[in-house]
């Protein structure tokens, strides 16, 4: 805890005034503490005793009971939610998400992969493909398997099409040719999207 030991309240031989090197800072600090406590008091609705309403100890005590109460409430609600989930899961028909995606207007796009070498060990990749859930994850896995590390990433999904532009850095020592990467990615997309 902060306490300004020894900077105030010492009576000098010469003066009888209190001297403080940082009187204003102290005052500001105390004012800030007080304001925080009042804000806390305003936020906490439970009141144990009106007489001691504005005592620091009461404010803190009330805040503690309030917080534990709120935590319990959150826990109750979470449990309720889980319970509802559990009981109704059997009833729920797992709607195929693809149904929803079909409703969206789609552009007809040809899948495309483009890889360029920017730097000695940096590549820039651009992919256009149809969107499907889980494809991003697949993409990340492939990148990791190739020993590449993403330096920049931009992924957008619109009208059922994914546009991914990212740059990768080759971390592992071996030289990775851009063509090789391109091939891998193309393969990935083809296989993933084809297995519908």
């Amino acid at each position: 805890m902060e306490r300004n030991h020894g900077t105030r309240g010492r009576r000098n031989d010469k003066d009888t005034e209190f001297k403080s090197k940082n009187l204003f800072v102290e005052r500001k600090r105390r004012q800030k503490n007080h304001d925080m406590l009042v804000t806390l008091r305003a936020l906490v609705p439970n009141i144990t005793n009106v007489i001691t309403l504005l005592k620091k100890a009461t404010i803190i005590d009330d805040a503690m009971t309030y917080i534990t109460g709120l935590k319990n409430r959150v826990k109750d609600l979470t449990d309720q939610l889980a319970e509802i989930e559990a009981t109704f899961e059997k009833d729920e028909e797992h709607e195929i998400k693809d149904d929803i995606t079909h409703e969206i207007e789609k552009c007809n796009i040809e899948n495309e992969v483009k890889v360029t070498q920017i730097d000695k060990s940096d590549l820039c990749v651009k992919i256009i493909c149809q969107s499907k859930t889980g494809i991003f994850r697949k993409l990340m896995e492939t990148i990791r398997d190739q020993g590449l590390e993403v330096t920049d990433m931009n992924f957008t999904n619109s009208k059922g099409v994914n546009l991914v532009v990212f740059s990768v850095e080759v971390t592992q020592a071996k030289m990775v040719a851009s063509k090789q990467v391109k091939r891998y990615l193309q393969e990935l997309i083809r296989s993933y999207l084809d297995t519908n």
Partner: protein
Amino acid sequence: MYDEGCYYDTHDPNPFGEGGDVAGANSSGLTPLMSAISTGNSNNSLEENLRLASFSLEELSNHHHNTEAAAGMNFEEMNTHLMQDVLHDPDHISGMDMDQKGWSTGLHDMQGINSQQAQQFHHLNHDAAGQQIELQPNPFNASYAPTPTPDLLNLLHLPRCSVASMLPDSNIHLYDQSLHLNQLPPQQTPIFKELFHSLPHNYGLPCSRGGPSFFGGMDEREAGNGSVYQDGEGRQLFDNSVLDFSNMSGLGKRSEGKGTNHFATERQRREQLNDKYKSLRLLVPHPSKSDRASVVGDAIEYIKELLRTVEELKMLVDKKRYGRERKKLKTEDDAAGDMESSSIKPISTLADREQSNGAKRTTWLQRKSKDTEVDVRIIDDEVTIKLIQRKKINCLLSVSKILDELQLDLLHVSGGIIGDFYSFLFNSKIYENSSIYASAIAEKLIESVDKSYAAFHPGNF
């Protein structure tokens, strides 16, 4: 059931279930004050009003103490009042039991004694008058006759030290003759040992901290016995001496200076207060600095976050519960997304429903761990996640895994390496019938990112 909207309602039972009577007393005391203070409904006005009211209240309560002391009113009342104050604080932390008993008996007695005034109170409650702040302390002032809480306080009747300190002359009258401080008969010790050990731990073990200083004052008074209370023995002797709550200690001066030396009590009070700050700090999830302002600031933010989470969960539960029923009733039409225009009345009050008609779910929370910061915002069914990773690992993979697990459709991802950090922004859409909520997302993300970091680095190096 916990109902935040109704705190200022006179007849609302205390939501934490502390006991109906206590709540009754509380709310009767509460409403006049709160109705006067909270004329506006915004937090700001409440704060301002509180600030203004704080001056008047503090004055009044100080005045209350001072008049009792100065006017030489009933020392018994004063003493037990102080004792209650002092004893109730630590109880508050350690458990509600003692506190409840104490307060309910205390309040019951007050109510019993001032039943008439209590009835007046109830009348006053129903008029919304501003003068009630003024009226309120007076009944306490005039007829404050607290009954000592059972057991502990009765035992402690013997050393009425805190009062004694104020009027040293009356020392002799209040003390049992044989307990005069100058003579410490050993036969008295067992009682005080019991007393001492029966006090709640939080009350502090003065002997271990202030042992020597307790007897500083006594040195002056006893010629020749000073050596008995030296430092090394102070600890041991304390057990054998009067359990002195008051101020016979001091800075070596006997009742000079301020007139009353509150060194020991004040010190205990400070220590208790510090302990409270520490306990408050333990409650919040990510306490950073340990200074008072930060602790309170963290608590404030956490309370706000908890309130948002409660709102969110309430809405989800309702949506889930009654969304299902609607689905069952409807045949083919699937209008499950259209909750707002539901014709079925769920359990949550009609007022709540009307209020949330058209309102979208909004939540926001932040979670931090040692190397990761996650910021999750949900508006309606879109989730925006900001992720900052302090160490360089490939967190994109783990994040994408989690997002798939939680059935969040990625709409947009952008980010990259910035200096030493990975920083990403994810926009995704919640799958229609999922009941995921913000804190779950945040926690899972942090957990998995930290896990993959831990797995990655030891393996790599």
